[in-house]
């Protein structure tokens, strides 16, 4: 079976003179939750922008379900949903209209939309705010709007960028439950985050980015073994990478 997402020898960034990513390769299978971890400026967001097709790779290629963006733009873009790091919302639209717009862009059926949106609104306790304008919401509530829009779609691949910041504990738990459900039904989720303890509990695999390269990737056990300390937690390993203590990687 084709991996849901395959990134092969990706080099890229905003300008050719200053590439940010160097030779990044990884794959994601259906039903996997992968944590993308790295310091600020390590290249997490750039990687995500390349996967979304907002940036064009300098070399290498990105396939979703075996297809590149150039081969089939519609299928490529429709097979993923994205939760950005900072909520991006329309000031002139209500919460419900945001959900409807998403349904329109992804061509959902009316009954699918009705059923999923009411479930999501309930899960995030936003039923009463359906007709409010999210631009006036707090950061956490706006983040919930973005999450609901993405999970309304049920695509094969979710790209979730730093979703926990600003969410209340209930919201975090709802999101985690939702991700677990989607995983079970076969979706792949790529999540970038700094909240390592949560990531440790929920992610199946990790990709640790450092200076635009993949420093190390694998399951926590694999990374621990490579690190040479089976009791080390992700936090310690991450700090070692960030401090440049990388002898153990070779």
């Amino acid at each position, binding site marked *: 079976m084709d991996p849901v997402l395959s990134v092969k020898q990706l080099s890229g960034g905003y300008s050719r003179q200053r590439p940010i990513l160097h030779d990044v390769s990884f794959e994601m299978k259906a039903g996997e939750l992968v944590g993308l971890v790295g310091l600020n400026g390590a290249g997490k967001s750039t990687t995500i922008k390349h996967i979304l097709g*907002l940036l*064009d790779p300098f070399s290498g290629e990105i396939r979703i379900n075996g297809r590149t963006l150039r081969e089939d733009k519609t299928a490529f873009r429709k097979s993923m949903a994205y939760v950005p790091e900072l909520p991006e919302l329309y000031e002139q639209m209500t919460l419900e209209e945001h959900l409807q717009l998403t349904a329109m862009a992804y061509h959902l059926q009316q009954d699918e939309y009705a059923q999923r949106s009411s479930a999501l609104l309930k899960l995030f306790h936003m039923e009463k705010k359906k007709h409010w304008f999210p631009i006036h919401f707090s950061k956490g509530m706006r983040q919930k709007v973005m999450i609901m829009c993405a999970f309304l779609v049920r695509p094969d691949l979710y790209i979730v960028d730093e979703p926990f910041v600003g969410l209340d504990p209930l919201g975090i738990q709802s999101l985690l439950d939702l991700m677990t459900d989607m995983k079970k039904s076969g979706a792949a989720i790529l999540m970038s985050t700094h909240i390592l303890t949560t990531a440790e509990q929920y992610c199946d695999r990790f990709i640790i980015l450092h200076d635009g390269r993949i420093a190390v990737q694998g399951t926590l056990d694999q990374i621990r073994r490579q690190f040479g300390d089976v009791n080390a937690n992700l936090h310690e390993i991450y700090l070692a990478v960030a401090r440049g203590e990388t002898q153990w990687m070779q």
Partner: protein
Amino acid sequence: MDAMSMLWEKRRRETFQMQLRYWNLIGRNSGLMFFLYAMILIGGFYYKKWLDTLPSHFPGVLLISVLVALACAHAPVRTFTARADLVFLLPAEAELDRYFRKSRRYSFLMQSAFLLILWILCAPLYFHTTGYGNQSFLMGAAALLLVKGWNIDCSWQELFIRDTQVLRFLRTGLTFFWIYFVLSHQAWFVSVVCAAVMGCVSYLLFHRQADFGLLNWRKLLESDQRQAMQFLRFANLFTDVPRLRRRMHARRLISRFFPVRRFERRTVFEQIFIKTFLRSDEYLGMYMRLTVIGILLGFFLNIGLFSVFLVLSIVYLTGLQLVPLWQHPFPQALAGLYPLTHQEKSRPFVQLTALLLSGQSVIVSAATGFGTRSFAGFLVFLGAGVGVSLLFSFVYLGKRVQLEN
């Protein structure tokens, strides 16, 4: 109509309504409207006088061609996109063809209107230097519209291409040559060859590269944002406009002259105003532009002591455009939480505008003095300019700022 076309129509309508509201406010600002009418009348008068003094070999067509070519080559596509489109419309990118086609058509119409106005303004000079008649004028208009359409198409393709500098240069050059050939009545085959080259460039360079590229959403959003800002900044001259996202420039060279020297409370806003003036994209450029216009007009426009009105207008216009600096959004902490009094904010602002306007008065007066070759004239201009600068900042702004306390 499909959903995306409807979305486009909705956004266009909303933008129109927003602009209409601002036009309404602008129309009500009678002082400025009067000033503009006066400028137009005086401008028209001197335009005619200037034409009469032109030597017979004056390169009028060349000058017009450069002007009009620049207006043609500047062909950004207005798409009415918002940052949230990166999330919500991205999955439907393949269905946005019609949406973007509407955007191109709209941009063509709007920019053509502006272009025709410019062409009409150039007409007296064109008739005067060439002696051609109305038919040439209409032919010129048609040629301009054609090349505008070509530029819009090319500038759209540029959004799919990674390195566009050379292409833009080529596009501007070809636009200029085409316009110049048509306006100066070169042999017909010269224009035909030029058009053929344009067609080839369009097909071989622009379309072929673009077909292979991906739509650069970031560039698209930035360009649209910039175009939206242009109108808002214009409206902001007349009334307060709630802010959009802004761009900042580091301007390391100039900023180095204004380091933080003392940790005193009164220097807090001094620093903020200076750095905002220097680094924000709306003040320094405006200040330089108006100063240069003042220098050029003052030096070349020989109207003796009447130049004093020129100096005053420049200073007044600059002053008006500096007013929004006061309301420039500062971090929330500074808006009330820092232990700073109102005076510690208002005084540096008034002083800075006084300094900037007086400095401008000195420069423009000097240029005008040189132009009129009279030292006494220079003193009059300088006196008037500095006088208005001080009045504007200490009296007018001082009051206006005080009201907000």
